[in-house]
Structures are given as structure tokens and as C-alpha cells.
């Protein structure tokens, strides 16, 4: 029961996929939209190629007539101007024909659109929250949740004038510390929201792009057919590091997914009573160290890593900040003043400013380390340490 238009869509998709794969050697093209790995992405690709070829045909016809006229009807060839200046018949034809083409185009587009909006019967639900400038994933079924930020090596390489050889990276700016892991062959529902400004979560291979809007929740879905790693980006301008918050989705067979869930699921304690609810499974091991005494060089080393991942985006890698927008850490009254005030800024944030609370984002150790680092780097020489136990006591 397929209409001719649907047949046309799938035919164009199939043919174009062949062309693309032959020219580029793989289904990945550097000059065209990826076919993708979900039924919807393939439909979207088919629509894209269909409208593309329609546009090519229209363009070719229009330009052919125009260039023919430009060569034939020129004064230098002795052309004498006619003086007709209207024709109701032609005008009706060239209004009606485009209309018919449009209607023919709108039908398959509408069908795909309806399918895109149908999020029912999903088997896995992942909440995706945009932050400046990272993503947070939360699996509603298992409670697994973690932040996903640009890989540290890439982050170092992308600093202005870093001099790092970028060809060493296979996927420059498209690598994260913790990828989103999802099963293949299951309908996955994504919920999109944001904790600050508007972001947009895009994975071309899944044909999924949805804005993350603070205070509101959006949804869409994907059914991935092929295991693999699919990479995307934030596509809504969200401030300074908009270009540096990639999306990496790792689609794995179901057994592998279930094993991953079992390994990473938080203990079945009710989330709300667990003060470290937002800590990731990966940081769980570190959590145990919060009680011991840490040496300054240990804290400094860890603090530098945390600083570059979390703080440097605004306060800069050299701690100088950006005048007028983000204050300097170097020589700042807070970073060189009493410990309690410094801890409070990091822990609670600064009301009404861009300085967020990191109580929910960083573990006790990370926070202690980064505060220690700030007090003893960039020419700051307070000399003291902040112990993880001090942070733990606040919780």
C-alpha cells in the first residue's frame, strides 16, 4: 500500500545512498547529509534527496531557458526585441505547476513529520539537560546520571594558539569523557531541557535535533538500528563555548547495554535522601577518599584537571578571566581571602551572576582540589589546602 510518492522517496534515497557510498567510499559523506542509522533518518535523507533533485531539475530548466535566451536574443546577434508583455495562459501555467509540485512534496514530508512526533511506546527514556557548556544525561528507568564534557585532550588542543597538532585526533571536538550509552533496536525517547540558556542537542545520524529550553521540556525519539558511535554537536548558540560541547552516542547491543546499566546503576537508595545523588558512578570510588587527609600536591594536580574542565571556560586557563564578563582568579580577593568565603562561592554559587553552584556537579574531592588549586596557582600563594572532609561536612 505504498503511494507513488513514497516509492519515489525511497527510490531516491536508495539511489543517492549508492552514489554517496561509491564516491566517498563509505556511507559517510563530507558534502552531504548522512543517511543515518534510524528509520526516520533514512526517511529524512530520502526527503532531502528528493527535494534536492526536484530543485536541481527546476533550476536546470529555468537556467536552460535563461541562458538560451541570453545567447540567442542578444543585440550583437542582430536580435530585434519583440514587444509582448503579458500572457494569461503562461502566467496561469507557471503559477499552477509549482503549486502541484509543492503539494506532491508536502505529502511525504507531512507523513515523516507525523512519525517524528510520535513518541509513544518508548522503551528507554533519557533526559538530556544542556548546561553551559556540557550535557547531562539521566536515564529515567535506572537513575544513572552523569555529565558529558569535551574530552580533556581536545579541550587543551582547542585553546587559542595551543600549537597542538590536531591531526592526532580521530574526531577533533567530537570526543567526550562520558558518552551516552543506548541500546540498539529499542525505541529511545529523549527529553530535552536546559539549566541555563537555550541549547540544541543534535546527532545527524539519528536525525534528532531538539532545543533544550530552560524551564520547559521537549521530547523526541530514535530507534537505532546499527551499533556504533554517533557524534553530534550543540546547534543553538549558547555562549562562549557553544562550539565545544559535543554529543557522543554509543549504541550497543541490548545485552551489552544491560550489563552497562547493571555496572553503573546507583545503589537502590531513594535518590532524594542521598546527598550525593548527582555524583556519577565514575566518581563513586573517589567518594570514599573524601575522609582521608590529602596532600597539597595531590590536590593541586587534581585541581588543575578540574579547573581546566570546569572553570577555564569562563575564568580562562591562565586565571585572568575576561574583563567585564568573568572575574579573574589570579589575585582575586576571594581566592586569596578566607577559606570559608571561597568555599561558599564554589559550593553555593553567586546569586544573580553567571557563577553557578557546583555542589551538585562536583564531588567533595574535586571541589576541595579545585579550590586548593585556585588558591595556589596563577601567582596566588595562599599556601593552604582545602580538605575534602571540609566540603563533606557542608553537605
Amino acid at each position, binding site marked *: 500500500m505504498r503511494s507513488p510518492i513514497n516509492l519515489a522517496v525511497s527510490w531516491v534515497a536508495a539511489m543517492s545512498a549508492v552514489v554517496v557510498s561509491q564516491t566517498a567510499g563509505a556511507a559517510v559523506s563530507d*558534502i552531504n547529509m548522512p543517511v543515518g542509522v534510524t528509520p526516520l533518518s533514512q526517511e529524512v535523507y530520502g526527503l532531502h534527496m528528493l*527535494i534536492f533533485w526536484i*530543485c536541481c531539475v527546476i533550476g536546470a530548466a529555468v537556467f536552460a531557458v535563461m541562458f538560451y535566451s541570453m545567447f540567442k536574443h542578444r543585440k550583437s546577434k542582430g536580435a530585434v526585441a519583440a514587444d509582448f508583455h503579458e500572457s494569461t495562459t503562461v502566467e496561469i501555467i507557471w503559477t499552477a505547476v509549482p503549486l502541484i509540485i509543492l503539494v506532491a512534496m508536502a505529502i511525504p514530508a507531512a507523513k515523516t*513529520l507525523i512519525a517524528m512526533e510520535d513518541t509513544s511506546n518508548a522503551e528507554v527514556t533519557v533526559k538530556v539537560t544542556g548546561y553551559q557548556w556540557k550535557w547531562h544525561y539521566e536515564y529515567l528507568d535506572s537513575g544513572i546520571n552523569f555529565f558529558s564534557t569535551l574530552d580533556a585532550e581536545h579541550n587543551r588542543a582547542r585553546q587559542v594558539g595551543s600549537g*597542538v597538532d*590536531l591531526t592526532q585526533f580521530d574526531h577533533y571536538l567530537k570526543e567526550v569523557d562520558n558518552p551516552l550509552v543506548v541500546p540498539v533496536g529499542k525505541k529511545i525517547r529523549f527529553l530535552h531541557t536546559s539549566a541555563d540558556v537555550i541549547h540544541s542537542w543534535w546527532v545527524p545520524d539519528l536525525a534528532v535535533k531538539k*532545543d533544550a529550553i530552560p524551564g*520547559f521540556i521537549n*521530547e523526541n525519539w530514535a530507534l537505532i538500528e546499527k551499533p556504533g558511535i554517533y557524534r553530534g554537536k550543540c*546547534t543553538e548558540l549558547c555562549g562562549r563555548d557553544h562550539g565545544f560541547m559535543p554529543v557522543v552516542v554509543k549504541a550497543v547491543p541490548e545485552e551489552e547495554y544491560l550489563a552497562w546499566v547493571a555496572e553503573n546503576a546507583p545503589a537502590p537508595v531513594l535518590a532524594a535522601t542521598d546527598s550525593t545523588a548527582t555524583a556519577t558512578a565514575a566518581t563513586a570510588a573517589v567518594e570514599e577518599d573524601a575522609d582521608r587527609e590529602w596532600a597539597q600536591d595531590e590536590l593541586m594536580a587534581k585541581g588543575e584537571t578540574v579547573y581546566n574542565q570546569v572553570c577555564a571556560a569562563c575564568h580562562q586557563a591562565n586565571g585572568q578571566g575576561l574583563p567585564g564578563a568573568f572575574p579573574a582568579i589570579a589575585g582575586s580577593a576571594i581566592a586569596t581571602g578566607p577559606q570559608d568565603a571561597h568555599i561558599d562561592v564554589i559550593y553555593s554559587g553567586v546569586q544573580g551572576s553567571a557563577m553557578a553552584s557546583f555542589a551538585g556537579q562536583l564531588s567533595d574531592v574535586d571541589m576541595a582540589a579545585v579550590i586548593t588549586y585556585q588558591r595556589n596557582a596563577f601567582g596566588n600563594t595562599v599556601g593552604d589546602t582545602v580538605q575534602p572532609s571540609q566540603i563533606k561536612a557542608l553537605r
Partner: protein
Amino acid sequence: MSTATAEHHDHDDHGPAKGWTRWLYTTNHKDIGTLYLLFALVMFFIGGGMALIIRAELFQPGLQLVDPLFFNSMTTMHALVMIFGVVMPAFVGLANWMIPMMIGGPDMALPRLNNWSFWIMPFAFLLLLSTLFMEGGGPAGGWTLYAPLSLQGGDSFAFVIFSIHFMGISSVMGSINIVATIFNMRAPGMTLMKMPLFVWTWLITAYLLIAVIPVLAGAVTMLLTDRYFGTSFFSAAGGGDPVMYQHIFWFFGHPEVYILILPAFGIISSIIPTFARKPLFGYASMVYATASIAFLSFIVWAHHMFTVGMPLAGEMFFMFATMMISVPTGVKVFNWIATMWRGSMTFETPMLFAVGFLVMFTIGGLSGLMLAITPADIQYHDTYFVVAHFHYVLVPGAIYSIMAATYYWMPKWTGNMYDEKWGKIHFWVSTIFLNVLFFPMHFVGLAGMPRRIPDYSLQFADWNAVATIGAFGFGFSQLIFVYVVLKCMRGGEKATTEVWEGAEGLEWTVPSPAPYHTFEKPPVIN
């Protein structure tokens, strides 16, 4: 130019005043038109310089030159300058020069208002550009100023909002003047359906401006009060909705797109018949097509926002309405080609630019049709494919039409023919580099490069390098334009009254250069 006109009329009532105060106090439509055009030319190089900073950073992957925040502020300012500081003032300048001469009127209806509306512009842009030197830098949230991002930057924000208010006041005043001129200043016998299409398209554009600029003013005022006076129009915490800003903004923004292109349609409709030596095909359908494009522009705004999460019915409606726009736009293109058909064409520089417009605007229009298909737009949205699309309609569209108009009417303005050889070189060099610049953006966009990013993955490196080469080539080839314009202002072969063999219209019945005052006695229209 001033010396040339001064020779004709040099007494108090009729000639221009001497010295620089002439330009400050002038109420003459030709002087004000010249001021607008020169202003637009200066801003074109400022906005172009910003574009070159953007392209230079994007020449290679990795960050070499600028901080990402400054990069964002360059993309933001480039758009604001090019839209409000180049295309709009240039069209207003052309309207000032040509509308009174085309309809047989002595001047604009409200000459003093005309002076004010121009002189607001330099102040508005000084204010805007000065934000780059303020603490925290200029606006960096994109020219669309989406909340809540636009509310995050430094205090230069307030200056940006005020400068947008000033630009808006200037545009609205200019538009009121144009409407009043067209309705009240036509020579007897110049009925509405006899007006040249440039006048028609500007009449419709002026109404669009008057209708939507106040909406923009409202939207940015809400941003201002959200930021400084505790309102929460766009903050969910106080019961607002950031998406509502986008709705209000694009209710202005989409008609704005047509404000930037309708006068271009008028220019092309003047030039093609002249060089085809054949009357415009389908004059009446051109007028109706322009009016329907203007109407449709009010009901398609949400196609800029297909990813914000609209109900299905909304997405369907905006998809269909957007696709509908291609019908009247197609009619226009077909009419132009029918005008060329069986004409007796020559290809002087204005015609070259008009043909360039026709070809490349059509490419931009077709990619626009692709963008209208909502499911595909989900993939195109906010990528370089969109950047390629709107630059194809704005640069070879709006900018080329302005250049075509300049070459076309410059002999009438200055009394001298421009240098044809350099004009043609300007066209060919620009056109080649323009396509080297913008065509690869289609590729990287489709392959997954988002817009407004200062650094990108290695897979996009080759085409970005190509685009940057095109950008510098295109940018520097505009110096040829400046050279041709300056040379023409200083002298050259004297232009005849008619200038072009096939030219029709009242502006070609006055001497070249056009006297300081024209049609003080209304011409006879047959």
C-alpha cells in the same frame, strides 16, 4: 559630484549650500540619498571586515586568532551591521534618489524628517560599534538576541538595545516619508498601476517596515526590562517563556527578510527591461506577487523555529505556508526570464549584476524551498547549510541588486559614465569569489557543521579553507567597486539624458547629472 551640480544652479533657493553644513542641514532628497549610500558603503567595509575576521579564524581548525567570545561578538555584529547598516540604508538611499524622480515629484514629502532619519543612523551605529570597546565586549548572543543568552553579557547590552531603537526610529521615519511621497507627490497622470516596480516594491516594503519594526522595538524593550527592571517576559522562573521571544522576534524577522529583498526585486525589474529593450513581462502579476509575498511573510515566521518543539499542527501549517512563498517568488523569476525572452539584449555592468542576481538568487530560493520541508529542516537547522542559503539570497540578492542599481543610475547621479571595463571586472571577480566563498558552505552544512562556531572538526577543514579564500577574494574585490564609484564621481565620459538605449521612465527625461531640483513643475504623463 557637488561641483557638477553646483554649475547648474548656484543661487540660494535652488543650489546646494556651500561647505560641509550642506550635508548636515540638507533636506534635498538627492543629497540625503547620497548620504545614505555613502554611509552604507562605509558600513559595508566595516561589516565585511568583521566577516573577514570570522573567515580568517575559520581558515584552519583550531583556534588561532581570536577568543571564542569575541568570535561570537563578530558574528553578531557582522549581521547587525550588514542588515541594518548596509542593505537597509542603501535601499533607503536609492529610494530617496529615485522615487521622487520616478513618480515626477519635486522632492520627498517630508524633507526635514528625511534629514533626521538619516542623521540618526551614524549615531546609532557609533553606539553599536562602541560596545566592542566596552568592558565585557559587544553583544555576543547572535543578532537574533535570543533570551536568555543575550541577557548574560556585559552592560554593553543596554547600548545595543538603544542603538536598535535608534535604527528602528530611523527606518520608520524613512518609511513614513516614502509612503507619504508615493501617495501625495505623484505627477498628475501617474496612477498607481503606472508606477515603476521599484516604487511599488518600496511602497510595500515601507508598509512592512512600519508594521514590524515596532514589534522588534517591543521585543528588545522586553529584553531590556527583563535584564534591568525585574520583569520576566522571557524567564520561566517568573512565568515567562524564552520561546515567546523567538515568536515575537521572528514575527518581525521574517517580514524583515522581505524588507531586504523586495526593493531588490524592484531594481531588477527596472534593469532587465532596459537591457532587453523590451517592456517588463507581467507588470500586474509582479505587483500582485510582491503583495502576496508581503502578506505571506507574516504567517511563516515559525519556520525559523522548527526545533523548539511546536505541536504537530503548528509545524504542518508553517511548512505549508512557507512552501507557498515559492509560488509568487517563482512567478517573479519566470516574469524576468520572459522579459529577456526574444529581447535584444546587451550586457553592460548593471545587466551583468542583474543576471547574476537572477541565477544566484534562484539558487538561494531553491535551497529555501528545501529548508521549508520541516523534517529535512530538522537536519539543516542552524548549520552552515542555512548560512549558505541566506547568504545566497542576501549577497547576490540584496547586495548585487544594490550594485546593479548603482551602476545603472550612477550616470544619472554624476553625469558621467562609469568605467565599463572595471565595472565588468568587478562583476566577474566578485561573482567567482562569491561562489567560492558560499557554495562550499552547503557541503559542510549538510555534512554536519553547525553555524556560529569558531572551531570545527577536521572533516570540514578543506571546504572551510576554500570558503576563506573566497571570502578574502570577494572582500578585496569590492575595492574595485570603490575605485569605479570614485572615478565616476570625479569625471569620465559625459552621460546623455537617456543614458541607456532601452531605458524607460521619468528619471531618464531629466538631464544628466540630474539637477539639484527636478520636476518642480510636474511632467506630463501620457
